[in-house]
């Protein structure tokens, strides 16, 4: 039996014994996964049927005018991949590795019996994942264009994806994971991404979730950072009926820095949960976290941001904030910043706000001739933009903004979308 077969078996046993997390567990208090099995059935984990999608379909979902290496998956299976990567960059699909090089799959995707399963939902992924991306970048190599990973969900059933991003010393890359779809039938997308950054490596990671409003989405991003490495994450959760993203960053060695930014824009009865944990294990590491949420209708948001400063982490510098804008009195947010400090010599700040649009700001804009709707859109957009301004790619940022504002009341004119904040003074 290969290593991976062993891991799969062990993970499956774990999953069968424990089942999905329930709201009795603190970490899942506000997010019930019971709806997944009630909608998809007891065998909710069963794979979605394969689909074959054409180029026009891919283009319809993809970020427009975005120059990137592109790898596309449809219902959990590799569809197409661009070629021409520079020397020192290897990109394999997991399905390819499972046929040709299980040892590499076991290493790069941390598929070994010692690796943590995180929880029973993730255990199902370990047991069942059949495809994903394995990106390895050699020491000192810079990926010249972003890598755009696009997944399109069309069929009912579950999809278990597993990605590994390995950057050698001083390697650099920008990777975008995008989960899309607009199926009228419910399905589950479950994606785990494991990131390893060696000394001085730098990864910019954007994670976009624009799935169908019938879809369930479970995601996990697990990052291990070595000395002086940098990780910059932007997570945008806009789609799915129920979504949960767990991000765990371990600042393992001195000088590592991470930035976690996120935006959730929810409407209708959407439920969206972000749980993040940053572990300051080594001294002199820096973390910045800024999440913002816009909630309309009867949407329910959950944000739990945990920062743990371990006993050896002297000189830690950590800041975290979470702000929420409620556009409806039926929308709800459960926000909880958590700070656990086992060391004195640290700088740590966190804060959390929940509010409505500011009446004084609204009146000011209207007194200058902007309509009520226009004023509300502009203020809402300005609120969201705060967490998007640092994004590396303007094409990705514009895509997120348009997707986010299209679903809020009174679709924002694209003219406004283009001008605000970028209305530089021409010379």
């Amino acid at each position, binding site marked *: 039996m290969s290593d991976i077969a062993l891991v799969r078996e062990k993970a499956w046993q774990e999953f069968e014994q424990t089942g999905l997390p329930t709201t009795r567990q603190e970490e899942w208090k506000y997010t019930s996964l019971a709806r997944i099995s009630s909608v998809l059935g007891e065998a909710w984990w069963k794979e979605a049927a394969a689909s074959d999608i054409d180029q026009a379909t891919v283009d319809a979902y993809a970020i427009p005018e975005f120059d990137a290496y592109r790898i596309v998956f449809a219902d959990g299976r590799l569809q197409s991949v661009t070629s021409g990567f520079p020397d020192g960059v290897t990109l394999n699909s997991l399905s390819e590795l499972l046929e040709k090089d299980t040892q590499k799959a076991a290493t790069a995707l941390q598929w070994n019996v010692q690796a943590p399963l995180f929880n029973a939902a993730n255990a199902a992924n370990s047991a069942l994942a059949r495809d994903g991306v394995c990106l390895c970048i050699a020491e000192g190599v810079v990926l010249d264009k972003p890598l755009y990973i696009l997944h399109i969900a069309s069929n009912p059933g579950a999809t278990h994806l597993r990605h590994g991003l390995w950057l050698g010393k001083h390697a650099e890359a920008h990777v975008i994971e995008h989960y899309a779809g607009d199926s009228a039938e419910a399905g589950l997308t479950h994606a785990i991404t494991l990131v390893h950054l060696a000394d001085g490596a730098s990864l910019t990671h954007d994670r976009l979730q624009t799935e169908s409003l019938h879809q369930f989405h479970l995601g996990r991003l697990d990052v291990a950072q070595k000395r002086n490495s940098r990780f910059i994450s932007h997570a945008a959760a806009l789609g799915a009926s129920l979504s949960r993203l767990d991000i765990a960053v371990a600042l393992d060695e001195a000088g590592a820095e991470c930035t976690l930014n996120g935006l959730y824009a929810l409407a209708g009865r959407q439920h969206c949960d972000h749980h993040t944990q940053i572990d300051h294990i080594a001294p002199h590491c820096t973390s910045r976290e800024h999440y913002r949420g816009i909630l309309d209708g009867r949407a329910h948001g959950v944000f739990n941001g945990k920062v743990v400063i371990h006993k050896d982490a002297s000189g830690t510098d950590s800041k975290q904030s979470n702000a929420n804008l409620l556009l409806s009195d039926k929308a709800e947010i459960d926000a909880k910043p958590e700070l656990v400090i086992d060391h004195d010599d640290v700088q740590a700040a966190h804060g959390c706000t929940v509010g409505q649009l*500011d*009446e*004084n*700001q609204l*009146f*000011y*804009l*209207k*007194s*200058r*001739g*902007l*309509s*009520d709707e*226009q004023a509300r859109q*502009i*203020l809402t*957009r*300005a*609120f969201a*933009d*705060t967490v998007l301004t640092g994004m590396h790619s303007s094409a990705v940022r514009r895509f997120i903004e348009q997707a986010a504002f299209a679903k809020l009341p009174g679709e924002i004119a694209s003219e*406004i979308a283009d*001008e*605000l*904040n970028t*209305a*530089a*003074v*021409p010379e």
Partner: protein
Amino acid sequence: MLKIDDLHVAVDGKEILKGIDLHIGAGEVHAIMGPNGSGKSTLANVIAGRDGYEITAGSIRFHNNDLLEMNPEERAWAGVFLAFQYPVEIPGVNNVYLLKAGLNARRKAAGLSELDAIEFMQLVREKARLVELDDAFLSRGVNEGFSGGEKKRNEIFQMAVLEPTLAILDETDSGLDIDALRVVAKGVNALRSAERSIVMVTHYQRLLDYIEPDAVHVLADGRILKSGDKHLALELEKRGYDWVREEANV
């Protein structure tokens, strides 16, 4: 141009304005002076259409339209402009963008075509020079991180760009040092014209040294107790407000 008749306004059931009569003709500059809490800012806010005020009696007509029936943006389109006592900071909303949206909304309401980007930037640059506002301020968030004086200059700058027919300056002079006051006054004077009326709400006579009013009104206890010309302001400066109250038997 502006006709306020027997205006009564209450806030949370408490009457603040108790029958204001004020007529302002085209091209005139009126100063409204009075002690703290007399209702000056209430009057300015009611003309601009801010929420939270209950009009219990009376009318405001502007160019023969019922102003009280219009929402704030419709008033702006009709040519009303309020320079705020406390200009609001709006991070993330670009100063120039706001002006462009506001100006084009007004032009659209008047049946005019929108200005193109080049025409608009020429206009904005010219007006920024008028109040000695550095170009760097144009692309910043609205009032974001501006000093008190910069905020007030920004209000006059906005007024210069939007070219209202009725401008209400709500304590635009408060918190300004003498240099800033001169700059603001220069901006206001440059905008005086036969078509534009200006209402200045102020505590102090000081502003009127720089912007000479056609009429001065004393607002106290929710009523206009006395009206006169610029000499009334000088007298108030010397004698305070109590004698006006006594004279009016309040």
